[in-house]
């Protein structure tokens, strides 16, 4: 079998099956408006989490500003698709949103990615806040705090294409030389430089690509949920996305996907407990982290490829998150 045929069979068939099953369930009315909205949210969260995982989990750059990219994508899509009706406006909006987010990511990333750890986190957090404040103040374009009403342009077909497409593209990136450079940066920046990895370039590239898909996620959000306003994209949204990434496992794409689904299900289950739902959610978060600090998947991947071994081991996250003390402890044995 030529590799391309094999890939289509092993990966394409299960995906196509997934697509058709959901389509069938929608047709049969089993997936109703409520479940469709839940599905939409899952898809948006997958795109957001996977793109943040690229930045934080794989490249080791701690970002607290993903909601900023989301906001750019959401507003660009909203404004363009409101101005130009039909698929042209909506797809153009999504693309413009992604590109704009990538551009901002590039411009912000270039100077700030020199920062390490928490300093980078705070710089990205600041960036997202600035983006939000700009949207509040660009009254004539964004309608300020009052927010924008958006036409619903997404359906299951689009969600499927965009979500699966994003995941595949990011996965391909990670398993290429550019992606391995990014992982090398995460593992040990000094060592990476010493073997010829242009670490600045690797970081900025991951950040820009992550920003693009963050923007795309925002655009998908805006195109389904009717209404956006700046305070949806605050600091807490960035945290929400980070929670998905860490819960799934830093450095595991399938972990991010599983966590996005799991959190949506948890949220559904908790909806009945109006009064204490957030208490239960917070408790659950703490308990999960205590018992599985490496996240649900660690850095392992679950493969769709039914013929390959399940759970092929992928690189784990180390340097970026290990306590600074640990990396400075000299000596040959890594004692912890």
């Amino acid at each position, binding site marked *: 079998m030529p590799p391309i045929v094999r890939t289509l069979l092993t990966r394409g068939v299960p995906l196509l099956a997934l697509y058709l099953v959901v389509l069938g369930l929608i047709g049969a009315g089993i997936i109703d408006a409520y479940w469709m909205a839940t599905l939409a949210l899952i898809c948006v969260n997958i795109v957001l989490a996977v793109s943040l995982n690229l930045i*934080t989990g794989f490249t080791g750059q*701690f970002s607290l500003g993903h909601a900023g990219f989301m906001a750019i994508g959401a507003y660009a899509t909203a404004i363009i698709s409101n101005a130009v009706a039909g698929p042209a406006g909506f797809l153009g909006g999504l693309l413009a949103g992604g590109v704009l987010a990538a551009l901002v990511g590039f411009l912000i990333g270039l*100077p*700030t990615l*020199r*920062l*390490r750890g*928490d*300093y980078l*986190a*705070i*710089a990205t*957090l*600041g*960036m997202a*806040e*600035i983006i939000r*404040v*700009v949207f*509040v*103040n660009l009254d004539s374009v964004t309608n300020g705090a009052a927010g924008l009403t958006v036409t619903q342009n997404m359906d299951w077909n689009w969600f499927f294409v965009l979500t699966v497409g994003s995941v595949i593209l990011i996965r391909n990136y990670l398993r290429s030389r550019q992606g391995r450079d990014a992982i090398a940066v995460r593992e040990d920046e*000094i060592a990476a430089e010493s073997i010829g990895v242009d670490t600045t370039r690797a970081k900025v590239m991951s950040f820009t690509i992550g920003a693009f898909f963050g923007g795309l996620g925002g655009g998908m959000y805006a195109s389904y949920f009717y209404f956006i306003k700046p305070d949806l994209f605050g*600091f*807490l949204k960035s*945290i929400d996305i*980070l*929670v998905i990434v*860490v*819960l799934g496992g*830093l450095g595991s794409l399938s972990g991010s996907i599983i966590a996005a689904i799991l959190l949506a299900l948890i949220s559904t289950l908790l909806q009945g407990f109006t*009064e*204490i739902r*957030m*208490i239960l*959610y*917070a*408790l659950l*978060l*703490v308990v999960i*982290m*205590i018992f599985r*600090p*490496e*996240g649900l998947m660690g850095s392992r991947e679950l493969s769709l490829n039914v013929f390959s071994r399940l759970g092929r081991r992928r690189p784990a*996250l180390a340097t970026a*998150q*290990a*306590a*600074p*003390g640990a*990396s*400075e*402890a000299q000596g040959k044995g890594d*004692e*912890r």
Partner: protein
Amino acid sequence: MDQLAQQLINGLSLGSIYALIALGYTMVYGIIQLINFAHGDVYMVGAYVGFASMAILGLGVFESLALAMVTCMILGVVIERVAYKPLRNSTRIAVLITAIGVSLLLEYVMLYFVGAAVRSYPPLPDYFNAQFAVGGVVISAKSLIIIGVSVALMIGLQFIVQKTRIGKAMRAVSQDADAARLMGINVDNTISFTFALGSALAGAAGVLVGIYYNTINPLMGIMPGLKAFVAAVFGGIGLIPGALIGGYFIGVTETLVSGYFSSLLQDAVVFAILILVLIFKPAGLLGKNVREKV
């Protein structure tokens, strides 16, 4: 001129509040490199304990302050033992997420029990409400108290961390816990002590803010917590004088931006300055950018 002087006073008072919270933040960070997102919420709990103690138990301001500090101290240690200690050997982001979980937990448990509505602190003794007018500039006793307390606490903390035995132990633990054990340092107790101290400070800040603004609510910790974190980073995270300077800087900048440009832009300008400062001083204003020796 008067207006500028007034704005500076305003900025320093606001900055003191950020500094008060940032001190505890930065100390905990300095020792275990944890961005303790729950710190802002411990501060909130402190504000409520102060409120309950004054409004319900009828205690005086200083008794209430003490009570809030002790309660928060216990709360801080419990949080550390239950939620953070099991993650001693995990990645820092894992602990960060746990801290966010704890933060949400405190907020929503509080929301559940006391409701979302704001509460106002009971009336205070007169000396708190005094005001002085110097020319056209109004200075309130509360401002002076809060500025004074923040400076005093900074000095006290700096002394503890730099000069005392336990302070040295704290720094040793922060750099290499195993090696610290080999020196005979009880690492768990040292970390608990750090939390106790940091949380007591948060409790004090909560009561002082309650007194200063006279309003508290279960979500009051989020924004100041974030700003305090920014202040700590700004000054050089882990550095106690940095927290104070960062707090003042942010307070004054915010005030001047809203006073002379537009209050709409205050957060954006603060963050923009922060990013610029970090680009030129990647370890904050006071931080030294030590490169790892290879």
